[in-house]
């Protein structure tokens, strides 16, 4: 492990749950923290504090990430969610989230329509959650 002082560790479980349900596998947590150590220097103390505040207080990080992505705020949360996806994809236990094993046109259409509707509700809910973003 590096000798540099680590900036505060983000809410890894919360970030994992933006994408996936359930507890984060220990291997994935460990890899995420290694990656965090690598990239933390790209973020200011203020950005990290804003992330800490958001992950500690916000009841729906997925909704918050969506609205912040649209408005360009709390960029660090979007970046960490993407980093989580990059790392999770390498594990066979998470392949099913990225590659469908059961394919048919009706299932695809229904899933996508549901996804669009779900995103819309998340977005509306997220607008109320923006107060959890400090500044």
């Amino acid at each position, binding site marked *: 492990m590096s000798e540099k002082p680590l900036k505060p560790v983000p809410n890894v479980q919360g970030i994992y749950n*933006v*994408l*996936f349900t359930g507890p984060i596998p220990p*291997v994935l947590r460990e*890899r995420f923290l*290694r*990656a965090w150590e*690598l*990239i933390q*220097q*790209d*973020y200011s103390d203020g950005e990290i504090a804003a992330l800490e505040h958001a992950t500690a207080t916000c009841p729906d990080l*997925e*909704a918050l*990430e*969506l609205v912040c992505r*649209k408005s360009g705020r709390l960029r660090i949360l979007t*970046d960490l*969610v*993407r*980093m989580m*996806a*990059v*790392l*999770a*994809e*390498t*594990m*066979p236990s998470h*392949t099913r*989230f*990225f*590659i*469908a094993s059961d*394919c*048919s*046109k*009706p*299932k*695809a*259409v229904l*899933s*996508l329509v*549901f*996804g*669009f509707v*779900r*995103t819309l509700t*998340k*977005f509306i809910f997220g607008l109320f959650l923006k107060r959890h973003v400090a500044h």
Partner: protein
Amino acid sequence: MLHISAEITIVGSGAAGVAAALRFADHRIKCLVLDVGFEAPRNSFPSENLYALRSKNDVFWLMVGPNLERIRKLTKSANPVPAKLAAPHFDFVTRDATRLSPVEAHNFAPVQSFACGGLANAWGAGLYRYTSRDLSGFPIGAVELQKYYDRLDEEIGISGTADDLASFFGDGGFTQPPLRLSRKAHYLLEGYELRRTRLNQLGMFMGRPRLGVLSEPKNGRTACNYSNLEFWVPRIPWIYVPSMTLERLSKAGAITYVNQVLVKSWTHLGDWIELNIQHCGSGTVGSIRTRFLLLAAGAIGSAKLALASRQDYHTSLSLLDNPTLQFPLFLPRFLGSPLEVDCFGLTQLNVVYDVAIGQAPLQGSILEVTSPARSEFLSAIPLAAKDSLTCIRYLVPSMLVLQLFLPGTQATAARLSLSPAGRVVISGKENRADGEIVALVGRTLRKLGAITHRRLVIAPPSGHGLHYAGTLPMANTPQSFYQCNKYCELHGQQRVFVVDGSVFPYLPAKNYSYTVMANAMRVADHVANLLQRC
């Protein structure tokens, strides 16, 4: 410290340098090839299908890298690179580039390589002949390059076929059958063949790519096994990269290859040219004396050497690149289809838009989406995170990507200069999507059952075409110290030749790699003649 003499020295081991070395070897002339030369990792890589592998195994080491190489490339502070160069085991291609050649860039995202084999290590191996029309702004013609293309066909193994693109790419030179198309690409091509007349009237032509990718075994290299490993495994046997030829020539004793050497500048000393070099490992300086010097360090690298050798911190040179546009294509016919895991993961088809007389044609490559990581698509999907994953599962398998090249002209050129501190300074122009071109592409592809939308079109940063050219252009009568004659001899610099893309005065909207290589061989022939006369 290193002090060597050589008759002929080539600086750079990319496509141009290797092609020149190959030609000298054909003449049984042993040249010296210098480079920094970072090598591809020699790990034991898988050969089985990517998706079969990842369904059973943790592929962290393959897709992220043991030292988190892929994460490093995705950080805010990293220089943006195209997706293939972000793959962990392609890290060697751009390793230390910003340290060895610092660049201050505005509106331009340069990508440099100090690897053995250069940027070609990560190319898509699209290898296209230039026609007379493409060369209309050049002081050389297509006939002069013919025999060099033929020689390269023999060395590399080109898969493809004569089809509607023959008038744009030439109808010969295929030493191998074309690769098998993916289902979506096959569907598009069938649709094109049914509607050919109408689409040709609209200026659209479609056909198979010409690729340095083996569909059949050749010279100990295995044929493509459709495993989708192209994004992840360097020096995959079926994709030709110039370092394969370099290695072969070096093992055969046909060239002398010296790596870990950074060339800083040159000076003329009577009949000799002295290269000022630095050893990358120890940092110590030295010199190499040569009778003939061939610059193959890439348009940025060769320009830097030319400016540094004259200690010129004022002149700015044109730097061309092909601006690109990326069109995500959605094929509703394939919605709900499983991801096609056993196909070639790169270029499936080419399209050419030849719309108006007097205007240059535009070349596009239609690429499969099966080789990149699925998470790569997350940033392009505007839905909530979990719903974006739903899109990746159910929508992305029905997609392809069209990458369209536009001509690289003075109108789109960046400017390159050298600062007294030795830093390259590049000022570029923003890459923007042309509405008419976007509309034409959308209209024609819709007829084939592929849907796109202007809001989805991506204009990558200037510099991401990776077809750098034009810094030391050929001219019939060179006027400036930064122009070359038709044999690519630098004006005012006897026996200094430029063989990379620097010499192109203009960039047609077409992959230029094959023509860079053919021209490098042509120049090598000229230098061989001069040497024999000495």
